[in-house]
């Protein structure tokens, strides 16, 4: 990092089905909460970065940078980032660059998504935009289908059983019970996961994160200090289509971003106390713990089978918190800060990816009062 960047404030809406809230009202709610939490005034914000993937497809709304800025009295400059489900991490990365360059001293990052207004077919087609329209979509593949391919191959290579895979979503649901901002605050047994309807073999309904509405905002600053420092911000990319990958049971972009982020923060996977990772599908959680270096290839499930000094998706993850796609990457940092404050531990990491990790983003937070 070329500057000392502090996370000074955060706020979010509860994720869920918000038919009475628009993109604008969701953003407004999260932004107001973040400003109050930061103890600054709106006028202190000198840049706004908005993360959003589906504004055009689900709300006929582009131009979200200005829309977010217009919620502030002084209309600061603004931009929007889009990198499918990694839009949030990319927005944070862009904000980091603005702060490091000195162009801005306090930046508001807001991730927002509205997915439940429109029929399922439409939102499924829009999400498929995260895959390759020329190489993946013509076969009739859907996004759950992409991860169905990953899961079939993973089970083939590592002998993971359906019974073991059930544990992942079940664990996320148990974690979400204590999270007031989660969409689904109910425990679900592994058996119930295994008995839910098939969506894309071998993945079932309860392996998949839901469609959700929601917004999450946080304020990063080089001017005002706080108890939480942003210790690393790394983005890496890969071929959009699975057909252009050497392997589909590990994601190169996650591995590269993790390596860079650990180097930037000068720590290793063993130093972490809390991790929020991108479990858009249960199988993605297993691939991700391996890519982050928390488990050996094929051994990710061990982390879910045993209690450990490390918490993974203590918030409930995408599965139980809900996954308003571009808000997720921002919301993960809010949860990491909360967990670090509670446990008084030093290091936490958020891992967010888009598509089948064609973009991966990693952010590491340091609790300075550890």
């Amino acid at each position, binding site marked *: 990092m070329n500057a000392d960047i502090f996370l000074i404030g955060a706020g979010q809406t509860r994720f869920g089905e918000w038919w009475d809230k628009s993109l604008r009202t969701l953003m407004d709610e999260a932004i107001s909460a973040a400003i109050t939490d930061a103890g600054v005034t709106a006028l202190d914000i000198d840049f706004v970065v908005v993360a959003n993937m589906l504004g055009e497809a689900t709300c006929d709304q582009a131009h979200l940078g200005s829309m977010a800025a217009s919620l502030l009295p002084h209309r600061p400059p603004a931009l929007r980032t889009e990198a499918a489900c990694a839009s949030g991490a990319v927005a944070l990365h862009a904000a980091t660059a603005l702060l490091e360059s000195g162009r801005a001293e306090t930046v508001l990052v807001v991730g927002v998504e509205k997915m439940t207004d429109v029929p399922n077919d439409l939102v499924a087609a829009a999400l498929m935009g995260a895959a390759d329209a020329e190489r*993946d979509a013509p076969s*009739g593949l*859907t996004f759950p289908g992409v991860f169905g391919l990953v899961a079939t*191959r993973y089970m*083939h290579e590592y002998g993971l059983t359906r019974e073991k895979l059930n544990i992942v979503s079940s664990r996320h649901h148990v974690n979400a019970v204590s999270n007031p901002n989660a969409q689904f605050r109910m425990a679900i047994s592994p058996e119930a996961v295994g008995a839910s309807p098939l969506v894309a073999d071998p993945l079932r309904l309860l392996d998949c994160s839901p469609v959700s509405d929601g917004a999450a905002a946080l304020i990063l600053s080089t001017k005002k200090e706080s108890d939480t420092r942003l210790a690393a911000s790394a983005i890496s990319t890969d071929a959009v289509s699975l057909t*252009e990958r050497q392997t589909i049971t590990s994601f190169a972009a996650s591995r590269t971003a993790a390596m860079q982020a650990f180097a930037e923060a000068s720590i290793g996977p063993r130093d972490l106390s809390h991790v929020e990772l991108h479990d858009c599908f249960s199988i993605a959680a297993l691939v991700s713990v391996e890519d982050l270096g928390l488990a050996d290839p094929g051994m990710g499930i061990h982390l879910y089978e045993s209690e450990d000094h490390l918490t993974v998706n203590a918030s409930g993850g995408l599965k139980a918190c809900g996954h308003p796609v571009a808000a997720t990457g921002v919301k993960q940092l809010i949860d990491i800060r909360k967990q670090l404050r509670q446990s008084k531990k030093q290091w936490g990491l958020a891992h967010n990816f888009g598509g089948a990790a064609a973009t991966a983003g990693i952010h590491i937070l340091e609790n300075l009062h550890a």
Partner: protein
Amino acid sequence: MHDFPPSAARRATEHRKMMQEGTILSFTVVHHPPEGFPTEPRTIALLELSDGTRVTGLLVTNGITPVIGQHVQPRMRLSRITSEKLRIYEPAYEITEQKPVEQKVFPGYILALTGPSGVGKSTVTARLTRSVGRFAAPVPIVTTRKAKDTDEKGEYIHVSAEEFMDLKKSGALVAATDIPSKTEQRWYGYRASDIAAIWAKGKIPVVITEMGLLQELSRHYGRRSILSCGLLPPGRSKRTMLSALLHRLRSRGRDTEESIEDRMKNAERDLAFFRDQKELFDHLLVNEDLDTVVNSLKGHVMELVKA
């Protein structure tokens, strides 16, 4: 999916490349197909085609349960009819055999260098295998071309045309090609035993290839086994690249003017190959400075060693 005539026409040009047999790498049953597709569940596979490219396509299962490693045949099928009554055809892949095919075991990595004559493949290989000799070794080339004083020791195994054909027939060669020439009949090939011997020593075999050899090696060992690097002459256009090659061929003094003419003709074909068959290359390196190229390849070798 938006199927407008221009995008459908563009897509159709891809179909020719997709009409190849292949092997199942993974599959899934999509229970809720996207809007516009027939509503029944679709079995979709990730396939490796015989030229090493990968595609996703509909599997025609014929009631056979798909298995990873199974062999499939391409069939052009009506995929869907759009609201404008445009009929969209897509290659689908049919499982023809009942029994699961034995999994091809991953044999190990091979580093392949491809480039037009005169670009410096032999020099680069010699320098590379000398500096990382503990990890990589050159595979001797079986050839019918006459020995020359300038050949590196152990670079070639010289055989007669009859001996070469015998080796080819017996299946001892994993790849063989003849390079058109007016001056002599030139066959080149690699023996499976030489490659296996290098693997047995725990090293990575380094092969010098051209398009025929590269395609055959990739078919035999699987595209995944081959780290394929293309070596290009410096120059921004085809013309400057060719003139750089001509200059090198003349200055190294190994070839007669007549054979140089042959080589230049082949070089033109080779440069087109880089453009048309991009998917066969993992890295393209420009041989502007020998040290840079060798260092970059060293890095790739060390990555494979770690893998």
